[in-house]
């Protein structure tokens, strides 16, 4: 069915595209047949990452380009992040990931800030990112900038261990039609569509839609709960009036059914049960941005967005509306570049209780965040030495006032070398899950009574603090070899901890309102507090080599050592070892990209992740491969195999019960662009 439809489409497109204007890439002299307008539109392969501004910034930044994503064959944003050094991506099951940067990876990872086109997708309820609902048409992603280490001064609170900035292409670069469809064993079926157009007077736009259905991963107990279906659609309009003003309006809507297994505890029998069900996840957002460039090079940007998130899971529900305003200005005065700005965000969340074991009290709260920042880049020696000083100032409904200062020094002895060092202080602000959350778990029967442990709310939860010390070195060696190294020492205080809070006792009344009076039970009281501290040390090295015009090799190695301790006189449920043992000490990857004759592309990826003792996960290595063939008429057929080295392997224990195996997968895609 698919193949005959595909063949018909192929023939149609072949007819339509008979007169292709694309020159034969193998013979550059054919370029001289093109007009200057056509030359300006040709996409070129750049020799390395060096020309991007990221190369000359005193931050441990890695840029995953849209091309890198496309050629890696991934179908989700979390899997794309495996291409960056220092990022620990571990898949929990079919639709959940743990993504940490430089340690502290968990299901939501509360110290990593994620933005999509400037919109924060950090949830203020549980602190962190629900990766399963962060999506866009991957073909339209321009780049993902991954900043390892604190980015609080510019990006705001919770950017403690890193920032992930997902940036989509301008609609100028997505003109025309793109459509693709395919399927395989885990990626059972998917279809993507985008159309971009313009009015010829500075306004360009695109609309897109995508849908997918994904099968379950490997379950030893054969309870295949984690299949996944979803659809998303969106638009973007860019309009510029001369060089001075440019406007962007964009938005998305999505709806998903994510199969999941959750533990539900309740003070009314049955005391505990694992539920396999579907999470009904939906939402949408709309964002507007205005950028003005003055003749003297100064710029300002004003941005506002609204985001709606609905989560109806088998054990809880949440409806959230977020409004955000942001203003940034950049001014150059002599040897100094000033950047300053202000932002305000209000996020109303309504919690919907399913069982008495998981309760927020109060249920309905509007969180707010007010920020301001000032940064000054001072050129000390022209083109050679730059000093950056700055701080963010912030206030939330949970913290009266905090600041996130940073000092960065960058030395560029030659055009091809950058050496930098920095000190930063970063803050993870308390969330509702730290301050007004009651989380219970049933432990068993004791003397004829039900025994529970419960984390009670903690209105005194303090911000988690970090002082980061970093150094970095980048060098372009010859024309084709690029080396990027960064090292860090991070010192943490007041880290999130799971404290035992006194001896077990018999409880008659719950501390939060419940419609049904619970029977008498025994309780071990506990609380989320700030009783961990310690340090992490490590580094990442990421070389990139382009030995020939048609072969690119890139790789990375990341090392992490975590040393955490509990504050004296405290009794912890979760130990320092359980945090340390949930992040890999060693990670390595190699990606090889070939442009072969006959418009064939071959990409091979190898990766190694060391074991996670606290997650009962052994070290593993695996590989991906993609082979793609493009016709002269821009039809592309590709075959992707992922996790090829073994039938399945485990990466992270995030679901109740047993580890879920991540399967070897294979899928075929037919795409056409016009």
């Amino acid at each position, binding site marked *: 069915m698919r193949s005959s439809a595909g063949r018909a489409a192929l023939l149609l497109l072949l007819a339509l595209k008979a007169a292709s204007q694309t020159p034969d*890439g193998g013979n550059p002299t054919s370029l001289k047949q093109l007009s200057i307008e056509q030359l300006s539109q040709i996409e*070129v392969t750049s020799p390395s990452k060096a020309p991007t501004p990221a190369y000359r910034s005193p931050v441990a930044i890695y840029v995953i380009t849209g091309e890198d994503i496309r050629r890696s064959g991934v179908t989700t944003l979390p899997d794309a992040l495996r291409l960056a050094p220092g990022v620990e991506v571990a898949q929990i099951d079919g639709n959940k990931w743990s993504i940490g940067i430089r340690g502290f990876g968990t299901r939501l990872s509360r110290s990593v800030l994620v933005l999509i086109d400037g919109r924060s997708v950090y949830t203020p309820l549980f602190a962190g990112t629900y990766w399963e609902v962060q999506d866009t048409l991957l073909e339209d992603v321009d780049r993902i900038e991954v900043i390892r280490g604190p980015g609080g001064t510019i990006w705001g609170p919770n950017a403690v261990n890193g920032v992930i900035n997902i940036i989509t292409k301008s609609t100028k670069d997505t003109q025309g039609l793109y459509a693709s469809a395919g399927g395989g064993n885990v990626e059972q079926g998917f279809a993507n569509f985008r159309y971009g157009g313009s009015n010829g007077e500075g306004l360009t736009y695109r609309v897109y839609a995508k849908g997918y259905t994904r099968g379950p991963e490997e379950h030893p107990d054969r309870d295949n709960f984690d299949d996944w279906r979803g659809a998303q659609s969106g638009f973007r309009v860019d309009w510029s009036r001369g060089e001075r003003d440019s406007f962007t309006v964009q938005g998305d809507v999505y709806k998903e059914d994510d199969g999941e297994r959750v533990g539900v505890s309740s003070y009314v029998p049955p005391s505990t049960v694992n539920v396999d069900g579907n999470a009904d996840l939906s939402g949408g957002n709309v964002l507007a941005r205005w950028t003005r460039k003055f003749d003297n090079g100064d710029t300002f940007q004003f941005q506002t967005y609204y985001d709606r998130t609905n989560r109806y899971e088998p054990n809880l529900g949440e409806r959230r509306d977020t409004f955000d305003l942001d203003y940034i200005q950049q001014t150059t005065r002599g040897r100094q570049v000033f950047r300053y700005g202000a932002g305000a965000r209000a996020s109303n969340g309504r919690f919907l209780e399913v069982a008495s074991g998981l309760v927020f009290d109060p249920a309905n709260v509007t969180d707010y965040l007010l920020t301001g920042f000032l940064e000054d880049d001072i050129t000390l020696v022209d083109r050679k030495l730059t000093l950056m000083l700055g701080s963010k100032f912030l206030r939330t409904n949970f913290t009266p006032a905090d600041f996130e200062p940073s000092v960065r020094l960058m030395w560029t002895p030659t055009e091809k070398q950058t050496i930098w060092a920095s000190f930063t202080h970063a803050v993870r602000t308390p969330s509702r899950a730290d301050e007004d959350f009651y989380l219970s778990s049933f432990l068993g029967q004791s003397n004829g009574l039900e025994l529970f442990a419960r984390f009670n709310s903690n209105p005194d939860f303090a911000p988690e603090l970090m002082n980061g010390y970093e150094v970095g070195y980048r060098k372009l060696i010859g024309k084709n070899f690029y080396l990027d190294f960064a090292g860090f020492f991070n010192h943490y205080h007041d880290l999130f901890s799971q404290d035992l809070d006194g001896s077990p006792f018999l409880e008659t009344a719950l501390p939060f309102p419940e419609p049904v009076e619970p029977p008498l039970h025994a309780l071990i009281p506990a609380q989320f507090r700030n009783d961990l501290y310690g340090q992490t040390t490590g580094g990442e090295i990421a070389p990139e080599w382009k030995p020939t015009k048609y072969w690119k090799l890139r790789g990375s190695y990341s090392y992490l050592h975590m040393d955490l301790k509990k504050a004296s006189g405290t009794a912890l449920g979760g130990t320092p070892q359980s945090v340390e043992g949930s992040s890999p000490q060693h990670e390595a990857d190699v990606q090889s990209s070939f442009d072969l004759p006959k418009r064939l592309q071959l990409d091979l990826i190898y990766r190694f992740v060391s074991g996670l003792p606290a997650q009962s996960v052994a070290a593993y290595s695996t*590989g991906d491969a993609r082979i793609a063939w493009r016709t002269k008429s821009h039809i592309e057929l590709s075959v992707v195999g992922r996790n090829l080295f073994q039938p399945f392997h485990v990466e992270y224990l995030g679901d109740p019960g047993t580890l879920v195996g991540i399967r070897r997968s294979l899928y075929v895609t037919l795409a056409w662009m016009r």
Partner: protein
Amino acid sequence: MPMVTRLLQIVAACMMLAGAPANAQNPTEYDVKAAFLLNFTKFVEWPESVFESPSAPFRICIVGEDPFGETLDKMVEGEKVASHKLVVDRLKRGSSAGGCEVAFYTKADRNAAQSIAREAPHVLTVGETDEFLHEGGVIRFVLDHNRVRFDVSQAAARKAELKVSSKLLNVARRVEDEP
């Protein structure tokens, strides 16, 4: 150890494949830049007086490091500007491009500014650094979303006594008219 073995296998496989002749899908940045250089000769007017004779060559000079390889030479082969045969000359970094009609400075040349300031009129200076136009250059290449675009300084063109056609200005990403 298995990790190292597998790595070696991958690298070995890659090496074997690299030996095969390849037909790169996209042209490189400098292939497109070379084509632009050739095109500039058609949209800029040089006074006939700069040539010693009708048969004198039209010189495109690469000052300093040559990023084009053979591409530019192949491209200009058999091309003419009016009666003048196009030739490519390579000059040492820092040397004067007097006698050239087009002078291209690579981004590796950080002291291009001094050279440009010394240039005689009638040399179309083309460069790649951010500051190139402010240093007195006429055309600057920029990479914009993996596409090669260019900016033009009208003031510098006037100073060099060159006439840039409006067609070229229309395609330019930006036209600056201040020194």
